[in-house]
């Protein structure tokens, strides 16, 4: 869960619109993994490595299509964006159900990801979780690098801070919007690949995470990769720490109540955007 929320919120941050991270996009990533495995049954070990770029491309292209087709007409109307993407995820969910059936699809874990690391008699960690944590961190650094070091990242930040000025400086804002959305969706798709290693791949995949990932964004602040990374980690760890004492459900409730109280003190998250852009 923790991993998932972190990644998804990173995706949300990149896309800068909370509503844009529809869970259906991650489901696309997970199903891409499944299809890749079907296509290369002899090479399950390599399939996961192939699945990552495939999932990125599939989800990214879907994201761009969504942006061009729907979201771009709704910029500046975040509530409508939220609603339209809900409608869209209903359609995607039903499409997945019709194509792949409503049952969960099995995704095999490759040999080199299986097994557990026995630290002592009590503590054992499965390798796939370790890999996923490492992979998340790498992806996070990569995303950070893209946003901070590349031309595209510069333009994305410029557009999100001051759209009119960026446009006046000759940045193709429409193109940047589409790319941002594609990037965010692509990352959500990669999250789907990782998720396929942790849980069952079914049409409702992601639905149970939607609130989690929104919470992470609220906690960390919209439009901030660091905030979502730290927010995702903190919430995930607190949730896990509470579980032994309070039980899984109560722990989640406590975290939610805490967040509702937290938002009192910091209505714009842990790391709010500052300056004029924050008021927009």
């Amino acid at each position, binding site marked *: 869960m923790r991993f998932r929320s972190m990644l998804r919120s990173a995706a949300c941050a990149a896309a800068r619109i909370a*509503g844009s991270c529809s869970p259906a996009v991650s489901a696309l990533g997970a199903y891409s993994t499944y299809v890749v495995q079907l296509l290369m049954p002899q090479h399950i070990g390599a399939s996961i490595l192939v699945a990552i770029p495939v999932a990125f491309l599939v989800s990214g292209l879907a994201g761009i299509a969504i942006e061009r087709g729907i979201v771009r007409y709704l910029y500046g109307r975040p509530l409508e964006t939220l*609603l*339209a993407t*809900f*409608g869209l995820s209903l359609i995607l969910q039903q499409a997945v*159900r019709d194509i792949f059936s409503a049952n969960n699809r099995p995704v095999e874990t490759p040999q080199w990801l299986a097994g557990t690391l026995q630290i002592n008699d009590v503590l054992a960690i499965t390798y796939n979780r370790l890999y996923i944590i490492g992979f998340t961190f790498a992806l996070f650094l990569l995303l950070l690098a893209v946003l901070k070091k590349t031309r595209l990242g510069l333009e994305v930040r410029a557009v999100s801070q001051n759209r009119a000025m960026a446009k006046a400086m000759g940045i193709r804002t429409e193109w940047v919007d589409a790319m941002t959305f594609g990037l965010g969706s692509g990352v959500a798709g990669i999250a789907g690949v990782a998720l396929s290693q942790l849980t069952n791949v079914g049409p409702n995949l992601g639905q149970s995470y939607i*609130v989690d990932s*929104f919470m992470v964004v*609220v906690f960390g602040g919209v439009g901030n990769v660091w905030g979502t990374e730290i927010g995702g980690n903190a919430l995930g760890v607190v949730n896990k720490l509470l579980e032994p004492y309070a039980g899984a459900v109560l722990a989640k409730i406590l975290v939610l109540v805490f967040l509702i109280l937290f*938002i009192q003190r910091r209505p714009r998250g842990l790391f709010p955007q500052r300056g004029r852009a924050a008021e927009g």
Partner: protein
Amino acid sequence: MNDSVVGNSAVVAGNGGGLRKAIRADRGGTVLLGVLLAIAVLVPALNLLVPADSVLHMSGYAVTLLGKYMTYAMLAMAVDLVWGYCGILSLGHGAFFALGGYAIGMYLMREIGSRGVYGNPLLPDFMVFLNWTELPWFWHGFNSFPFALLMVFLVPGSLALVFGFLAFRSRVSGVYLSIITQALTYALMLAFFRNDMGFGGNNGFTDFKDVLGFNLQSPGTRMVLFLLTAAALGGSYSLCRYIIDSRAGRVIQAVRDAESRARFLGYRVESYKLWMFVLSALLAGLAGALYVTQIGIINPSEFSPTNSIEIVIWVAIGGRGTLYGAVVGAFLVNYAKTYFTAALPSMWLYALGALFVIVTLFLPNGVVGLLGARGRKYRRATAK
């Protein structure tokens, strides 16, 4: 019912020629109340007086279905009141609806008495099943109907009061507010799914026998409940319309359109929003109570975030910021749902999703807005 409405609107419309002015000022509302009145006369006649083998006979199933739609319409109106007029997009209104339903459900459970499967005169069946020996403290008092009715309003109302107070005081708005309302209903859903909460776990409450001594299965009782629902829908419409047309209503709309400006003009923006939010929760709670009495079941899935989102869909499709649009939307979408889920089950989600995308993109004013635009065009054309 109808008289009081006209009275209310007439006050708003001014002194002279009250009725005509009121009708002209609120055409949609007049149509809505007229239709409700017609339903309240026709449905009992068609259901109870027309013999069952006649073509015109209305089955008990159809009556319950229509009653269900009307409770949904009330719920949609409650959402429209805060979303359309205050700009608060609540994705958690299902929670207030479900809480109202649970409150009346507790009364109905106590009313079963020793007629349950286990025949325990005090404890509802699910508690016996869980080997509980005494009634939890929060179940006391629910054997009395007036107390339960009070709770139908008090529980959702006070939740909205506390939640709204915290949220509006710290100026949480927009998408953030939507998300925490969603988290609220999600948290409640998780809580109500737990068996140890004492609300029947994932089975919730069902198998109700009677209300105030009247058998819930008898056509007479069902008809009275139906009429009560129609009256509640009409009554809450008039109440909402009255408030929206009042001075306070104007301030609310000012807050929606320019919150900072309203604040700097000296209005207490937070309290206006808070009271509207509480009123809306009260309406949702009442709708929930009427829903549960007619449908005969309440379980935690009513709290699920998707349910609350669906309510918003009804309002968006009907046309927000009109009140009667919400009613139209609730009826249209739910009728379509009843039809599609029976005829073409796999098509339903496509239809709903597509409808939602299309409405947000092309029909910001919903179906009602479309009709209004048509009407204006028609009138302009005939005037020439």
